[in-house]
């Protein structure tokens, strides 16, 4: 079954100064358990596309289906990770990761237990009663992912989820998050402007064009390395080839 199906989607924003054609004629599907990255020049509507899949926005034309069901609003099938962790500084880590289920009024003792188990598995248990400012950037991002996982989404949408971190942390966190997503067997769509990040994590990379954003090309990423973690993928011989292809495709001029 297809986890996500985007069919003929177009998006136009209205403003007093005129119309902005953000997206046009977008078609693609994502299979269950697949990791798809979307790259494109800034302002090409990548984030808009994620907002559409999350149900926060409604497309002006076309339809989006999650596991065969048409999207009508924010769905519990999707979990969305923003650029920054946005942990609430007035809540402890445990209360922060329970925010989603609390809002969905789904907080049961079992869920709470599951949340604590996540904290244990991913090394944040001893920080459960600490406040976000007492955690490092990487730990905060992990907490943000757990906050999403607690609501048990099938499909994770990551919107530049690592770009607020410094380079070293970013490499470590993308490894970290990738491992968690694979372990929990989630489908993931990551939007990024970092070509290397996309190739190192994705099964497929979608390249988008300038506004109005369309899908220019889709690359199946096949790397010959025994250990397909983002860190090791960067050492695969095909990595440079993909990087070069996508770079040319993006057609970036400064």
């Amino acid at each position: 079954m297809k986890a996500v199906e985007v069919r003929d989607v177009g998006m136009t924003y209205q403003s007093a100064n005129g119309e902005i054609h953000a997206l046009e004629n977008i078609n693609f599907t994502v299979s269950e358990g697949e990791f798809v990255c979307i790259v494109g020049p800034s302002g090409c509507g990548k984030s808009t596309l994620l907002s559409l899949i999350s149900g926060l926005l409604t497309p002006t034309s076309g339809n989006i289906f999650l596991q065969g069901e048409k999207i009508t609003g924010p769905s519990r099938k999707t979990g969305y990770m923003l650029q920054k962790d946005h942990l609430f500084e007035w809540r402890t880590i445990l209360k922060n990761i329970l925010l989603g289920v609390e809002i969905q009024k789904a907080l049961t003792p079992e869920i709470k237990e599951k949340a604590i188990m996540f904290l244990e598995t991913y090394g944040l248990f001893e920080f459960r009663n600490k406040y976000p400012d007492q955690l490092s950037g990487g730990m905060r991002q992990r907490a943000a992912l757990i906050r999403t996982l607690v609501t048990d989404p099938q499909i994770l949408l990551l919107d530049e989820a690592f770009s607020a971190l410094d380079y070293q942390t970013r490499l470590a966190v993308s490894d970290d998050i990738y491992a968690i997503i694979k372990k929990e067997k989630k489908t993931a769509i990551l939007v990024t402007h970092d070509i290397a990040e996309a190739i190192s994590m994705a099964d497929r990379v979608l390249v988008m064009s300038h506004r109005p954003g369309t899908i220019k090309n889709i690359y199946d990423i096949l790397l010959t390395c025994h250990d397909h973690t983002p860190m090791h993928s960067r050492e695969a011989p095909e990595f440079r080839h993909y990087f070069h292809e996508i770079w040319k495709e993006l057609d970036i001029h400064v």
Partner: protein
Amino acid sequence: MSDNTLKISSSVAQEKFISEEHTRYLSQLKREKMTIRFTQLLILLLIFGLWEILAQTRIIDPFITSQPSRMIQTIENLYEQGVLFQHIGITCLETIIGFLLGTILGVLIAIALWWSNFLAKVSEPYLVVLNSLPKIALGPVFIVWIGAGPVAIIVMTLAISLIVTILEVLNGFMGIDKEKIKLVQIFGGSKSQVLTKVLLPASFPNIINALKVNVGLSWVGVIVGEFLVSKAGLGYLIVYGGQVFKLDLVMTSVVILGIAATIMYQGVIYFERFVLRKSGLI
């Protein structure tokens, strides 16, 4: 300052070992604090002492400047007539009611304006005008409409503090990271959940700030109100004292006013600490 030393000493208490250097540093901090307190007290005593001496030796005219000993006498007199606490009580009560009403209504109206964009846009020019208008000008209007009494004074207080509260709290709401709100919406949160989960807790510092400003404004409102209409209260004593040239009464009332206003301001600070401690943030 006192906060800092408190935190340092409590974090030290958790550790087993305290170096000699650190002990010296701590006692130095303590000494510094004591010196500041001592100097503050000294200045107060000097002012009142000098005031008293200058008045006693007739270098200044106590009829015009009053003097500390006569102020104590005034307090005693008021107490013996049984009206001291009546005057203080009425003024404090008016202030507290005006303060609470201003704060609660202000926050509620700010929430309404955030909730409805239409309402916010419609009311914007009115808020600008009302914010610029010196509210004291409305005093006579309130007296005619409501009648000379405590209610008019409370309305006066409300008029002074309400608009500022609305604007301060609304500004706080608008300043909150839109992505935080998006986060709640992603989880399917409703508008009221955005309000309770993000807006109110995140703008707590703004609300406390509004409270602090409001304490001062409420006293202004009450005293102005009492100047205009009242037959009791500290503002009334000040105006009456001025009219009959009893500067003792005026000075005494001003000093009591200063003390009462400070206590109320400290009350807000304690409330802030209480809420922060209850939510575990300090």
